[in-house]
């Protein structure tokens, strides 16, 4: 007698969540299988942070700037994750032959990207936390949190907007070939400079800082600095409340933009036959 397995077909929200968990799983579990990444994904970036701290020490900068570097280095992890594990991920998936499988499957690419985002957020948060904790232990950074809830809200909104941006960019990368690597590489330095990872963004003139605010990390970091280093609040670019409102707007715009651009780019990629091509 033949065995019959009952297959339950999920749809709607259940399918969406199942996809998110399914795509996040390899990122979370995969990182546990080979601890070598702890060395070059956490320890070496930590050394980079130490390097920037000692640059400020050599320049005899005020101690608050050491805190700026520690905070900026922790947030760098998220930007690197967005660039290399979100934006360019669909390009890598195409290279590996997975993209065609994703498109063929009955789930949405949006859910797959949410899965990537949550899985990536997990390992990136570990990296950011290690940098923060070790940075504090080594350099005795003095945080005075003026409002925990405001800080929590700023961080969450920054991450939502940032990963929304990553999802939007990933739809663009779906159409790329070899230029994907170079484009992601090119985006790294300008954002690190203009978002003020290692110094207050108010060091630039208003319009440069305003233009840089399109990257959620710019306002997110500026608000976090104001909330944890109150003595340097005068270096803030905009009031925290206004930054929160802008972050809400950026979150909506980027998530909505990701949804529409993903659908459009998917259709375009299918039309142009780019889902399976490996021209590079």
């Amino acid at each position: 007698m033949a065995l019959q397995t009952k297959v339950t077909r999920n749809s709607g929200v259940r399918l969406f969540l199942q996809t998110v968990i399914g795509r996040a799983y390899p990122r979370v579990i995969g990182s546990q299988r080979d601890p070598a990444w702890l060395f070059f994904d956490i320890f070496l970036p930590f050394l980079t942070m130490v390097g920037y701290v000692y640059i400020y020490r050599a320049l005899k900068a005020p101690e608050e700037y050491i805190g700026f570097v520690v905070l900026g280095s922790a947030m760098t992890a998220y930007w690197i994750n967005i660039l290399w594990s979100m934006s360019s991920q669909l390009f890598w998936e195409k290279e590996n032959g997975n993209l065609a499988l994703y498109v063929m499957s009955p789930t949405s690419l949006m859910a797959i990207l949410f899965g990537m985002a949550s899985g990536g957020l997990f390992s990136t948060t570990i990296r950011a936390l290690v940098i923060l904790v070790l940075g504090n232990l080594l350099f005795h950074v003095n945080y005075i949190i003026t409002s925990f809830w405001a800080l929590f809200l700023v961080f969450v909104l920054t991450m939502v907007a940032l990963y929304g941006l990553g999802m939007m960019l990933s739809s663009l990368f779906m159409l790329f070939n070899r230029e994907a690597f170079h484009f992601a590489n090119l985006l790294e330095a300008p954002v690190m400079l203009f978002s003020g990872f290692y110094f207050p963004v108010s060091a630039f003139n208003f319009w440069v800082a305003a233009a840089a605010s399109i990257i959620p990390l710019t306002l997110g970091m500026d608000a976090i600095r104001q909330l944890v280093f109150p003595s340097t609040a005068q270096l803030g670019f905009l009031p925290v409340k206004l930054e929160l409102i802008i972050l809400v707007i950026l979150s909506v715009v980027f998530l909505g933009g990701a949804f529409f651009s993903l659908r459009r780019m998917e259709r375009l990629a299918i039309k142009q036959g780019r889902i399976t091509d490996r021209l590079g």
Partner: protein
Amino acid sequence: METVKTTPTYEAKPGKLQTFRTSAWLGWMIESNWTDPFIFAVYSIIRPILTAAILIVMYLVIRGGDFSSADFVNLYIGNAFYILVGAAIQRVSFGIIDDREHYRTLKYIFIAPLQVPVYLIGRSVASILVSCFSVLFTLGFGILFLKMPIVLAEVKWGLFVAAFFLGMAVMMCMGLILGGWTLIIKNNPWSLGDSMGAGLLIFSGAVFPLSVLPTPLQWIGNALPISYWLALIRRALVPEIGRAYPMYTNLSDLQLLLILLAFTLLYAVLAVVVYKRFDIIARERGNIDMVSNY
């Protein structure tokens, strides 16, 4: 009548020079032909300039706009030439990932009658050359816009050329050691070279003298060839200012050069031994055609 030899001589393996030349050509094609020359040039220029700009703004925020001070000139030159450290270390190991996971050709390279380390070094030469242009552009930017006192007539060219090539050789050996390690890493191996390049900044004396660091970290810096290389480059490019940099002030240029030569020989031996070991492990574990991305 002259006969044309059409059958290949199977006994003759390609020499190291031929392998190097061909892989360097391949590297150049991979590096440059993804776009038109203009975009390629813009790409090669923007990233290093903006990376240097991070330090410029940090300096500006703390010290104001005194860009001709010895501190800034030493920081700027160190930072500009550190681009090459990252390129040499990263690109040798990245060749392995690119060939294995993007082009899927690494297994064919391994079964071809050539020496893989020579191939990897050749393949990295193109991107190192591109990085040389980036360094030149960064220095040019400093001279033109920040009025940095680099006078071509005062440059010690002999010292510069000797130090430059020894430095590049030793860093490629470091890249080969990392390349071997890359072969056996399962998670995110592409970030190894980049992270190592960035992580070594602290021990290189590129942007601050080693004396700023706690003593045990200074030892690590002194055990790495990069700090000697950068000290020599500074002394060659801006002799007065470079000598004033508080690193190895008790050593003459010749002594520094000999130390760098000794490091080059030591790292060359290390690279051969370590790479061979990793190569064996990778073959045993079946890592040669592995795909690590997830």
